[in-house]
Structure formats: C-alpha cells, structure tokens
C-alpha cells in the first residue's frame, strides 16, 4: 500500500524527531507538522473500495514482424469515483511502441469507462496477456493499491515473408498432380520438351508446322514438359551454432526468414510441404498442402529460438512420415562441425538435398579486420567452411552459399542461373 514517497515521508519524520531529541529544541518538532498533515490527507482521500473491469482488443491476432500491431484497452469503473488511476500494460519483450502509450493516468468517475490504445512493432513470437495492472492511489500519490484485472489477449507475430521470384528445382520424382515443378516427362506444361509423330487426338495447335513442312505426308506434334507438385521438406537448423551473437543482427533470424520464404513459395506452388525444426527439442509439421499448412508452419516459425547444440546425426532415425520417400529436402543451416555424416546418411537414403547455408562469417565483426592476425584467422575460417561445403558437394548435396551481404532472392537467382553452380562457393571464398 505504501510507495517510495510515503516511505520517504516516514524517514524524514523519524529524522526530525531524532534531531529534536539530540538538540533538545522543541521548535524543530514543529517541522513534522506538514509531513503528518500530508500523510493524513493522503490517507483520508484514499478510495476505500474499487470495482474495475478491463477489456483488451487486438487490431489483428496475427501479424508479421514488420507489421504494426494495435492494442486497445478499455477500463470500466463500476464502483466509486477514483481520482488517480495508473494503468500499466505489459509491453511485449523487445517491442517498440510507435504510437500512443502503454500506460496512462486516469480519472474515473462513478460508473464510467475509458478507452486508450497504442501501436507497436514487435519481435517474432507468440505472446499472451492475462491481466492488466491498475494502480489506484490517493490524489497525493502517497498510498496505492495494485490490482491485476483480467484482460486476456493473444498475438502471433510471424516472420516477414520474402517473396521468392523463381526456384527451379528438379526432384527425382514428383507427385502426379499438376503443379509448378518440372517432372522430367512429356506432358502439358509450358517448357518445350521435344517433338514426336502426330497421334490421333493430339491438339492441332500443338502441331509443329515447320517440321511437318520438311517431311511431306507426315505430321509432328510438339511436346511440353509436364509440371507437377512435389514433396518438399524444409529443415531449419535451430541449434545455438546457427545464431551469431557477436552482432546485433542474428544469423538465426536470417535462417528463419529464409525458411518462411521457402515455405511460402513451395506451398503457393501447390507442393506438399513439411517442416522440421532441428534443435534439442525437435518440432515438426507433417507434409501438407494449402494455406492452413502455411499458417501452421508460420506458427511454428514464430516460436522457434536457438537451442543448445546437438549433433545432426539424430536425423537418420526420423520416421519416414516426416521425410516422405524421394522428398526434396531443403536444409537451412550454417553447417555445424560434425554435420557431414548426417548428410552422407540422408543422401544414402536417396533424398535430394539443397543446403541453403547462411555464412556465419559474413556477420562476424572483427574490429581490427586489417590486422594481419585477424585477417589470417578470418581466412582460415573461410577455408574451413569452403572445405566442408566442398565435401558436401562431392556427395551430391546442392550447396547454396548465402553471403549475408546479398539478399536471399539475389543468392537464389545467382545459384539457379549459374551453369557452374559449384563456382559460387569458390567465388565467395575469393
């Protein structure tokens, strides 16, 4: 009930009484009068009972990291008049209030209500509120009572979705349903596949007139590559090594953003997409289609945080339902020290693997980069990474080396439009 102000008054009163005793001067005792009157007025004006209710309304229950969130709070006073009410709402961890205030001082007459709101930008995560703190005090702010009124709310802040322009992957096998991934067989796609002799039932618009003109009395039909959907499993490495703590930018956040972008791209392409978050506590979403699946993936990605390091070997024991046979694996990982064996295993099971590897050295801030020793250390680290990636390339893992000074789209574009894909790793090393 007492706050620092009233406590201070007590200390002053105590001090003045002691000073009176020491100096044996009654006039000093007169100085206690304003303080005693102050305490008495504060106590007399303190509200005897409170009856408050609160409601919390969220602008949107689900937003992305860059999106502005809004919280509207309403306080309803169903009891006696309250002269000094301090409302304090819990601000999300790491959130920045951009408009309005999360706390307010109010005057609430009998049976009245008051609304206020604030806008914020917050970090990735799922957050819940249970209560709202309301501090009721006297007009002199001497005595106060803190109430925690139920005001529930839940918000999911998912990572921002970066739109990937084009990702022409070629899995060994596809699911026999029309999609956007080239299946490697003739069919009804858009990319030219070949020419064959005309058969009854072929559409006339597909006739290859030029070839037909060269061979009188014979007709030829153009064939296009069939485009189908595929099984894609995204693996996000959420071990502590994937989070570079040396800078303000987090390597792990880049990985999460990339996984989100990939999930969005593949699901919107009609593919069956699953997710596995690899960390001490493994989280997974079984492969599925559609917007609901994307929403599930985003919910998981909103909550993931780097966990302590564990070896990647555990992947070999995962059930086939998570990694369907012949699925295209898209691993987003900066590559740990003993990860190669796990990739060997997965390749031996016949999985095609793309490794999107954000370069941890790209975010490394060596203050004295120009010093010879630092330069040498950085080069050694680059070489070590290069050798690891080279070994993975040799076992058939398709490595996309993501330099942090380039955007995800730029990296993917460079990789998929480069005839010598292995060159990109070497380029980065140089």
């Amino acid at each position, binding site marked *: *009930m007492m706050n620092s102000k009233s406590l201070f008054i007590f200390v002053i009163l105590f001090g003045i*009484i002691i000073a009176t005793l020491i100096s044996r001067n009654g006039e*000093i005792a*007169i100085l206690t*009068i*304003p303080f005693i009157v*102050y305490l008495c*007025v504060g106590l007399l004006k303190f509200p005897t009972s409170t009856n408050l209710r609160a409601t919390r309304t969220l602008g949107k229950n689900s937003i992305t990291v860059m999106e502005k969130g809004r919280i509207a709070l309403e306080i309803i006073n169903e009891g006696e008049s309250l002269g000094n009410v301090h409302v304090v709402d819990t601000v999300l961890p790491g959130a920045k209030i951009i408009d309005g205030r999360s706390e307010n001082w109010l005057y609430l007459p009998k049976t009245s209500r008051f609304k206020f709101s604030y806008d914020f930008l917050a970090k990735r995560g799922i957050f819940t509120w249970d209560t709202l703190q309301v501090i009721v005090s006297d007009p002199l702010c001497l*005595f106060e009572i803190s109430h925690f009124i139920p005001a529930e709310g839940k918000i999911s802040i998912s990572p921002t979705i970066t739109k990937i322009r084009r990702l022409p992957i070629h899995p060994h096998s596809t699911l026999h349903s029309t999609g956007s991934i080239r299946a490697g067989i003739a069919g009804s796609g858009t990319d030219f596949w070949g020419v064959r002799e005309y058969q009854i039932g072929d559409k006339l618009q597909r006739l290859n007139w030029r070839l037909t003109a060269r061979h009188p009395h014979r007709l030829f039909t153009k064939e296009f590559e069939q485009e189908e959907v595929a099984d894609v499993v995204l693996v996000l490495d959420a071990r502590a090594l994937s989070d570079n703590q040396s800078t303000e930018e987090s390597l792990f956040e880049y990985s999460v953003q990339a996984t989100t972008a990939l999930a969005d791209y593949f699901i919107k392409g009609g593919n069956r997409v699953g997710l596995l978050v690899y960390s001490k506590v493994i989280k997974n979403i079984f492969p599925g289609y559609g917007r609901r699946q994307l929403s599930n993936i985003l919910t998981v990605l909103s909550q993931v945080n780097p966990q302590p390091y564990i070896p990647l070997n555990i992947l070999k024991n995962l059930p086939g339902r998570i990694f369907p046979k012949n699925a295209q694996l898209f691993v987003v990982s900066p590559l740990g020290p003993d990860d190669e064996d796990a990739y060997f295993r997965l390749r031996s099971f016949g999985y095609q693997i793309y490794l999107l590897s954000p370069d941890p050295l790209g975010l490394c801030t060596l203050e004295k980069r120009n010093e010879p020793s630092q330069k040498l250390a950085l080069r050694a680290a680059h070489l070590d990474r290069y050798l690891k990636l080279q070994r993975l390339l040799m076992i058939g893992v398709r490595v996309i080396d993501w330099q942090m000074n380039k955007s995800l789209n730029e990296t993917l574009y460079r990789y998929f439009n480069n005839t010598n894909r292995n060159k990109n790793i070497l380029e980065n090393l140089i």
Partner: protein
Amino acid sequence: MKQISWILAWVSYITSIFCLVGAYLPIDIWKILIGIPLLALLLLAIKKLKGNWPIYSIFVIYIFLIVLGLSEGRSLPLVMIGIVCAFTWWDLELFNRNVILDTASEHVEIIQANHLKSLILVIIISVGLMAISSQIHIQLTFWWIFGLSIVAVFGLFFFFYQMKKN
C-alpha cells in the same frame, strides 16, 4: 493548465531558497554558501538525469539546513515558510515528472486539479497548525522530551506496520 504546476513549483523553490538565505543571512553566511551551490547542482541534475533521486536529495539537504538553522536559533517564521515552500516544491516536482509528463489522456487536468486541491488543503492546515504550535512555550525536562519522542517513534512504526499490513 499543465503549466500551473511547473510555475507553482518554481515559485515555491525560489521562495524556500530566499527564506533559507534570509534565516541565515545576519550571521553564518558561509554555511549557506556551502548548501546553495549543492542545491543548484542537484537542480541541474533534475533536468539532466532520469529518476527522482535529485529531487529527494535536494529536499533532504534543505531539511538538514533548516534543522541546523533552527538548532542555532534562526528565525522560526522564516524557517516555517521555507519548509512549507520546499515541501510544496518537492511534491509538485515529483507530480510533474511522474504524472504530467507521463500522461497523454484528457484526464490530466482533472488529476492535476485534484492534486492541487489536496496540496493546498495540506498547506493551509500545516501553516495553521505550525502557527499555533509556535505560540506554545512549555518548558519540558529532557525525560519528558525523550518520552514523547519514544511515543512518536513507536506511533510512526505502528502506523507504518498497519500500512504495510493493509
């Protein structure tokens, strides 16, 4: 309306300083020459630093100087006006910093008015009681003073305990 609190706080502060200087002026001016720069320094700290500690510190120093002055037989009316003004400044300064600067709602003026009414009530009652008390001249022995002080201290602790309990 918001400016009234600030103006009142400043007027109170300046008045309290004048009272302090006035009480000390005829003799022992050197004591004030130590205290006043310290008060000015802390006043600068209020503007520059976050937190309320400079306001509390100024008030404690002021009370110390007042008590010191009274124990040396300085003018009681000046000291009484000084302490009431310093007390008003301290309360308004805390209120301005913690409530007015922190509030965006339209209720700020009502809260401020309520606060000022209560403060004026405190000042009027305090000045009245202090004036009456200053007219009472009873000679008490040390043991009487000691006994009354003990009662006051126990009373304070009891009040404090009750507040904590509730």
